[in-house]
């Protein structure tokens, strides 16, 4: 645990190009008479171009933290800066992807991708080309005029990814975007996403409860846990890019996953007998 904190400190002092700065942010939901503490206190810096995963079991406040970054929920304590200005409300320099594709069922894939352009009142003709490019990039060339009902779950989520990128936001926020998909499609989507990000460089904050997914995609994995929750581990992923499936077969990958799992288990009281090990982050490498 001590090591984890040290790592968090180290991450916070990364060079001053940090795009997202989350400082002691907490959130308590008030519903009627009860107060539900969702996030106790979380601090995190994300540098430009970084891919950071928020990893943790269900209910540990990952979505809440992400929605606060998006300006869709207001923190009850602390503050969030994006590109140097405080996040007080939703803003245009963000692209969001949810667990469900949330496409308009009566619009074609292409029109769905262009939806943010219409809402933001940007010139449609200037983004048409980009919309086609994005759809081709995710393997949906030829499907531009299909409606969501004619696409598979994975294809719909690809359309949602294109939609989140169309207005060229600085940062992409993804809330368990692939957890509604079957395991095989999910693996394909992970590869597809890392390929997309090789072309369209973006800063990404990615929420997941899948350890392997987090490890495969991320530059850094941030583990959330505890009750009420906070950040309990901030760990860089040492695997080279571009990443392909083969990464998952390396011993190093397995060790990283193991450490992440032990950290989560320790925080939630299911730790095996060797549970003093999670701090063994330094043992790796």
């Amino acid at each position, binding site marked *: 645990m001590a090591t984890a904190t040290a790592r968090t400190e180290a991450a916070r002092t990364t060079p001053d190009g940090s795009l997202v700065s989350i400082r002691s942010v907490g959130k308590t939901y008030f519903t009627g008479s009860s107060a539900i503490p969702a996030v106790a206190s979380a601090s995190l810096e994300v540098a430009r171009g970084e891919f950071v995963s928020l990893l943790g079991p269900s209910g540990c406040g990952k979505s809440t933290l992400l929605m606060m970054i*998006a*300006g*869709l929920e207001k923190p009850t304590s602390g503050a969030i800066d994006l590109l140097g200005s405080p996040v007080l*409300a*939703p*803003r*245009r320099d*963000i692209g*969001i992807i*949810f667990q*469900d594709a*949330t496409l*308009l*069922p*009566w619009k074609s894939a292409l029109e769905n991708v262009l*939806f*943010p352009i*219409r*809402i*933001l009142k940007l010139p449609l003709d200037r983004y048409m080309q980009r919309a086609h490019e994005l759809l081709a990039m*995710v*393997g*949906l060339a*030829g*499907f531009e005029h*299909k*409606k*969501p*009902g*004619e696409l*598979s779950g*994975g*294809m719909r989520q690809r359309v949602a990814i294109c939609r989140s990128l169309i207005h060229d936001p600085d940062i992409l926020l993804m809330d368990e975007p692939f957890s509604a998909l079957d395991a*095989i*499609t999910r693996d*394909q989507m992970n*590869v*597809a996403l890392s*390929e997309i990000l090789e072309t369209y460089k973006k800063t990404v904050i990615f929420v997941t409860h899948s350890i392997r997914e987090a490890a495969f995609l991320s530059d850094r994995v941030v583990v959330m846990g505890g009750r009420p929750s906070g950040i309990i581990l901030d760990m860089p992923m040492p695997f080279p890019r571009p990443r392909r499936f083969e990464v998952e077969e390396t011993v190093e990958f397995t060790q990283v996953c193991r450490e992440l799992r032990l950290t989560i288990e320790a925080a939630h009281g299911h730790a095996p007998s060797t549970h003093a090990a999670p701090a063994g982050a330094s043992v790796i490498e």
Partner: protein
Amino acid sequence: MAATIGTETGAVLVNPAARNRAAAGLRSIVLPLGLALFVLVAWQTYVTVANIPSVILPSPISIAKYIVARYDILLIHAIPTTVESAVGFLLALALGVLLAILITYSEVAREALYPNLVFFQLIPKIALAPLFIIWLGIGSTSRIAFSVFIAFFPVVIATTAGFLSVDKGILRLCRSLTATEWQVFTSVRFPSALPHIFSGMKIAITLAIIGVIIGEFITAQAGLGYLIIFATARADTEVSMAAIVVLCICGLLLYGLVAVAEMIANRFYSADSR
């Protein structure tokens, strides 16, 4: 990339049951038409064989002959009924959608209006028709007002349900894109409520006609409702049946217009491919 998505994009829908569906489509036309024809033939045969007097039950053929011969009179009465029904329906639609917007966007309006609307629906509203004559006179105003009164309710209920059934995720997406309430309404809420609105409209159009006919029963100098009452009072069953047939045709016409409007809307707002 192509390899990884191959399995997915290859999943093109093939429907071997397409031919069966065409046969089922044909059957769905032939069966009801056949039954209707059977009933008409049975009716004609019964009236002829049993020698039923025309005052009690005129035969289908004699009704048809009357309609062909006196279409001018029937038309004169059909026009005010159809026009008033259409006006009543359009007003009910406008009022219904406006109330639905109010209920959707204002919590106060929702809490104040909704229980009252549901309570109102429990009243047998036809019983109130004579009051409309007292309040608004014997002109077309009272008939249209009564028609609106009984027709707007299904529009409010269906439209409100449509507005509130919008996917929460899409609303959140709109919020994240800093969409204005107007943008959300025009590009998300209204289109996704359209199927609901049309199902409300289909009920409303028949109720609007009923409202006008009841008004004409009570007081009118023209209209199919007036003709039915007038002819029945003179034991002229043939005329009254002819008027009912024309009324059915007018009703079908109005309903058809709503159905056509729905088909046009579906071209833009259906989840199915064109």
